[in-house]
């Protein structure tokens, strides 16, 4: 997301500033210093991993075999723990260094390894202030050239964004179109049925024509993807709520939505009783696209409305 992208230069700058410590001698001075230095490994490795994997994820680049979301989540715990230990180890140092100038030790005095690096001679290149300004400029440059993928007023500046909120199969971005999801043949098959079953008075098994003959409604829904792009759009279709009413289901029960897509994590989606789905099988009101060319849900687990052909809410409610 935007904050993650902006943090890339900050992490790089931080690693650059402390790198001389990596080769400092002696490597270990006592037990507490050993504990602190061992903790630097999860700190540095975790920070590098979180930013690298995050940047790769928003570019939809997966050069690894693990699940991005699960690994990013658990590595965040490791990294946060390392930050807690590090802040504790540096607390007194930071407090002294941020004290009033009269009570503050010279940086070179407080930290012989880093102090001399951070206080270059005049005219020897970037000053400390200039260095901070450069980091801010790099963060700003990355933000300006990417934030338009979720902030429409800056859309024209988002030349390095992996998504454009106005570009996609139906004029909107989607991570996997119907062709990529492999559902075109399934949705066009005469055997297609939209099934509503479970604890309902009248289980349904609708053919596509029967489904399209049902009354439709329009809903304006936001789509916010974990990869940092988002947009809102109006979608028209048969509301799940209406389908459930036709089937004679009790209100406020949990719904399990099953995608037509043969495999994938977005197949089943329990809906909390507090927020029953309103309008799932739908397509943009202005679109002339037939359901079979519409799109399936995003792989990130946010829920772009799916075309009727791809939505098979089965087992409602269990």
């Amino acid at each position, binding site marked *: 997301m935007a904050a993650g992208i902006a943090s890339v230069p900050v992490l790089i700058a931080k690693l650059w500033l402390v790198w001389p410590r990596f080769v400092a001698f002696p490597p270990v001075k006592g037990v507490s210093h050993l504990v602190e230095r061992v903790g630097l490994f999860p700190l540095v490795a975790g920070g*590098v991993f979180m930013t690298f994997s995050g940047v790769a994820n928003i570019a939809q680049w997966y050069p690894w075999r*693990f699940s991005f979301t699960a*690994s990013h989540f658990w590595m*965040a715990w490791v990294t946060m723990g390392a930050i807690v*230990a590090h802040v504790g180890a540096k*607390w007194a140092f930071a407090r002294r260094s941020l004290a009033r100038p009269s009570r503050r030790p010279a940086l070179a005095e407080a930290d012989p390894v880093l102090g001399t690096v951070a206080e270059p001679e005049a005219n*020897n290149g970037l000053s400390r202030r200039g*260095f901070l300004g450069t980091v801010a400029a790099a963060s700003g440059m990355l933000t300006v050239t990417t934030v338009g993928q979720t902030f429409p007023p800056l859309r024209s500046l988002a*030349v390095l964004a992996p998504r454009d909120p106005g570009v996609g199969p139906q004029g909107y971005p989607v991570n996997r179109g119907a062709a990529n999801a492999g559902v075109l043949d399934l949705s066009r098959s005469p055997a297609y049925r939209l099934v509503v079953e479970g604890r309902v008075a009248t289980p349904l098994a609708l053919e596509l024509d029967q489904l399209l003959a049902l009354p439709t409604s329009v809903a304006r829904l936001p789509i916010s993807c974990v990869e940092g792009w988002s947009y809102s759009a109006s979608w028209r279709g048969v509301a799940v709520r209406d389908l459930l009413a036709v089937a004679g289901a009790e209100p406020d029960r949990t719904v399990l939505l099953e995608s037509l897509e043969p495999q994938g994590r977005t197949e089943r989606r329990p809906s909390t009783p507090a927020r029953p789905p309103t309008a799932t099988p739908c397509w943009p009101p202005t679109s002339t696209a037939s359901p079979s060319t519409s799109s399936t849900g995003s792989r990130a687990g946010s829920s772009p409305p799916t075309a009727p052909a791809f939505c098979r809410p089965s087992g409602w409610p269990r």
Partner: protein
Amino acid sequence: MSLPTRTGDDQPASGPEDRHQFETAAKGGAGFWLSAAAGWAIIAVGLRGILQNSIDTRPGNLARFVVGGALLHDLVVAPLVIVAAVVVGRAVPGRARAVVQGALVVSAVVALFSYPLVRAYGLAANNPTSLPHDYATNLLVVLGVVWATAAALVVVRLRRSPR
């Protein structure tokens, strides 16, 4: 990116007592050990999560990327940046040096971020959503803006302090 100049000997010396006091304040106190215990407990939660969800996290493959990333930075990227800093420090005249260093930093960060986009690693077929821009051209445009700004800053600095 400033040169790592070792000028510690030139700094005004203060008594060894002061330094000793400072270091004991920073190290080994109750706060240090409390936060270390809390931090490592949180790290343990993360490690346990990784191992318990090994079907998703693939610990062996994950470890390669986590360890590899740190090693790549500490042993390859950082030394390369230091070499670049030394070269810039020697090759670029003093009054333009800071601006050139800043422009190099911004350029490197933007290029690093754009690399997977320029190489189109994540390009999905049959989906116009996927990587809609010409990222190689756009990266060049952004770098052009960065260096045009840098050139303007250098001109301003030279005019302000003609030597």
